[in-house]
């Protein structure tokens, strides 16, 4: 997992003090869904928003796409305000559920969205063929989406997000509804897209998704940013060393301390253990419940250098 890609490139997505409070009909505050979020997503990285349900991930994404307006703060994509529709030319978005027209078939769906990008007929045609192959739905391309399974819908949803060959791909819970193989394919595809130079902003409540593919992650909890940094640095625990060995009898086990001290025996691995994200996650949740408002940024140092990096 390359962290360097995320550190340098130009800033594609930027939020400044981004805050969203859902109001009720009378203008009274109902939910503080997002609290003063500062983020940068740079060209060429896979950036993950991680957090339990209701932590504000989708809200963040909707603010970036102009589906919601910030209560305060700013959301910029390609340096443009989120309300500017022209930014959408370079964005692909997969919503949390694939909100597509059920009476269209796969080809018609992609054709329709292709038209919304003002793509010529010839270009739409070749693009649709490529995408249907990419998501392996050639066999069902003439069937109405209402006949699709959840996984198939998810895949066609991804295809519509890629129709314009976007520079920035925004994926809201990309693996929900997919079986393990589908999940694996989706993750591979995400990495492949990154390798083609695309920038990916995804969110998930599934730790495994984020851990496997993301270069950097932000952990949200109750609308607050709790952690921000490269995945491997977030997960390594520096003051503990873990050793893994095999073929030890109880006798030799007894001698392990000695053996280690004398550096004998078969050393299979010696490492800083990575906590699982789950542990990190749970500790954050526990932490934030005991100390509300506290934010620990492993990347604080990086962020201060940001003007240099962004140029």
């Amino acid at each position, binding site marked *: 997992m390359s962290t360097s890609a995320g550190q340098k490139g130009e800033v594609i997505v930027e939020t400044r003090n981004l805050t969203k409070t*859902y109001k009720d009909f009378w*203008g009274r505050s109902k939910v503080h869904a997002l609290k003063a979020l500062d983020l940068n997503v740079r060209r060429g990285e896979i950036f993950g928003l991680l957090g339990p349900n209701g932590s504000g991930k989708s809200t963040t994404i*909707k603010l970036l*796409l*102009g*589906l*919601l*307006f910030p*209560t*305060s703060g700013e959301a910029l994509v390609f340096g443009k*305000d989120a*309300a*500017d*529709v*022209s930014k*959408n*030319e370079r*964005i692909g*978005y997969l*919503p949390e*559920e*694939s*909100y*597509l*027209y059920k*009476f*269209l078939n796969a080809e018609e769906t992609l054709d*329709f*969205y292709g*038209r*919304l*990008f*003002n793509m010529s007929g010839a270009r739409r045609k070749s693009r649709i063929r490529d995408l249907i192959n990419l998501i392996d739905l050639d066999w069902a391309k003439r069937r109405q989406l209402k006949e699709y399974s959840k996984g198939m819908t998810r895949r066609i949803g991804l295809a*519509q997000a890629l129709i314009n060959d976007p520079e920035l791909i925004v994926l809201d819970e990309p693996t929900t509804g997919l079986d393990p193989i589908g999940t694996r394919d989706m993750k591979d595809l995400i990495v492949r897209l990154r390798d083609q130079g695309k920038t990916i902003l995804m969110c998930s409540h599934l730790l495994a998704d984020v851990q496997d593919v993301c270069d950097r992650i932000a952990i949200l909890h109750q609308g607050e940013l709790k952690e921000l940094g490269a995945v491997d640095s977030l997960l390594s625990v520096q003051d503990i060393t873990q050793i893994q060995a095999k073929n030890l009898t109880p006798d030799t086990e007894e001698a392990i301390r000695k053996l280690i001290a004398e550096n004998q025996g078969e050393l299979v691995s010696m490492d800083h253990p990575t906590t699982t994200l789950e542990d990190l996650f749970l500790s954050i949740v526990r932490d934030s419940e005991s100390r509300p408002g506290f934010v620990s940024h492993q990347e604080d140092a990086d962020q201060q250098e940001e003007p240099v990096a962004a140029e």
Partner: protein
Amino acid sequence: MVVDQSEFESFGSWFYIYMVDFSMLALFMLVGWAILAFALAAIRNSPIRAAKMIAGTIKRAFMVDFPSTSIRRTMAMSRLAIQEAIRNKVLIIFVLFVALLLFAGWFLDVENDHPARLYLGFVLSASTYLLLALAMFLSAFSLPNDIKNRTIYTITTKPVRAHEIFLGRVFGFAAVGTLLLVLMASVSYGFVIRGLDHEHTIDKTAIEWDESTGLGTGKTSLDGYHRHDFTINEKLKNADGLVGTTELSKGHAHNIYLRDGDYIVEPPTGDLLARVPVYGKLSFLDRYGQPSEEGGLNVGKEWTYRSYIEGNTLSTAIWEFENLTKEMFVTTGSDDGVLPLELNLRVFRSTKGKIESRIHGEILLVNPEETLSSVDRFSAPIPFEADEFVTSQVNIKFSDIRRQNPVTGELQNIDLFKDLVDSGKLQVHIRCKDHAQFFGMARADVYIRAPEGSFEANLIKCYLGIWMQMLLVILLGVFFSTFLNGIVALISSVAIVAMGMFAGFIGDIQTGEAPGGGPIESIVRNITQQGATLELEMGDTAIEVIESLDGFYLNTMESLAKLAPDFSKFNMSAKVAYGYDIHLNLILRQLVTTMVYFFVLVLAGYFILTSREIAA
């Protein structure tokens, strides 16, 4: 048929007034919106930020979004709207319409005196209501459904602009509606033609021949609940065998041909017309022959659309026609022309005369130049008879126009255009001859009949009016659906359309033309059991209070109603049914009105959609 006063205005003056009115209203709304939007934004943010946001929105609209309008994107949205509509089985409406026509016999009065009017009125209003209802449903629910299903998320995150979403819906539904209208129009046309078509036969042996004149008279067979009197003159017989015509019955007549020794009655003629009326200006003289400011009498029989002149007095109705030329009346090749007048006079009897008998009147053709002596101005009276609810055609032959020689007392011929028409102007004076009887008339009731227009062309013009109503309804529906949910948007559309249809009525209460006054006065009348047509009996202050309250209410309603397009002005089915050509002027006004609403609503829809949180 009632003709709205505004139809006599020229397009130019109408356009001027309309534009001034509308610009004021638009400006008022724009300022109102800006203040409201600013206030709302300022509550949530700082005023400076609010101002910046509004300025940004407006700038983005005119600098970025409108210039980058794409036909392909808009058409993609339209296609989707069409697919959605078809999927919702809207063409069921057409099936419904056909069924309605199939069973029309059950509820249409087959013995009606004017079957053409009845059928035309029926198919035109049925198509209008079905189409408008469909337009309301389609337009009010579409966008709200997209928002509810969140399919809108995948739309607004594409480069499609808010006005393209709006226009796509409008064009798509308009396309569906147009298809439906064309289908309904074709079926309707067939229905009317077939419904009016019938045959009569003539029993040769029953014809009564007058030895001296050689004319044969008789009655046709009874078909379609009527028969015709006819007169045959075999001397007239020309190459194709035409020997006569029947009398008018149920609004039509038939030509009679002699072929192979049999009298053949041809299909009906004269029931599907597009008469082109040339209207004049109407003024009145009172019973003493003095110009009357208030117009004619109001006999209290109906609202003031018509005025009455009293019989056997100097009471006169004067129509002044303009821009008359000889070429309008002289058929090429002949020297003698005909001035074709048509009179649709109401007859009001104050004494119980013979109800059946017609009432006598006279027409005078008058030179409008008042400096001439009355001897030189007036023609001799031309008598006519009028019947209630029947159009009297008075075709005045030029050679029949005479004047009494003041010296010899003899009637002598005069030349209509040399002696009576003054720089294209001519007055037609009408009086009632019978004592204690009255003629009622409005400006549109007497006119010179110009050469006939085409009925089919007229029908198409009428459908164009229906089409524009549909477009307006779709525009309103989509507009409301940008900020209301489906049901509320639908109700709002219905309310606006109803308000538009009754806009004229609100105006009539204002000008006192509709009896009974405003809502408060009506309530008072109800409670105190006073009829609507009498003067209100109360203390002066009480009346004043009631009237000022009503005035305020009606003024507000009128301004609101002005915001709504006046749908009644788009409904031209009466003209088609009564056989009057629809003047291009009317179509032009409707076109302008539709276009104005189009731009205003698209613009408003754009700003509402862009300033709305789609995912909230």
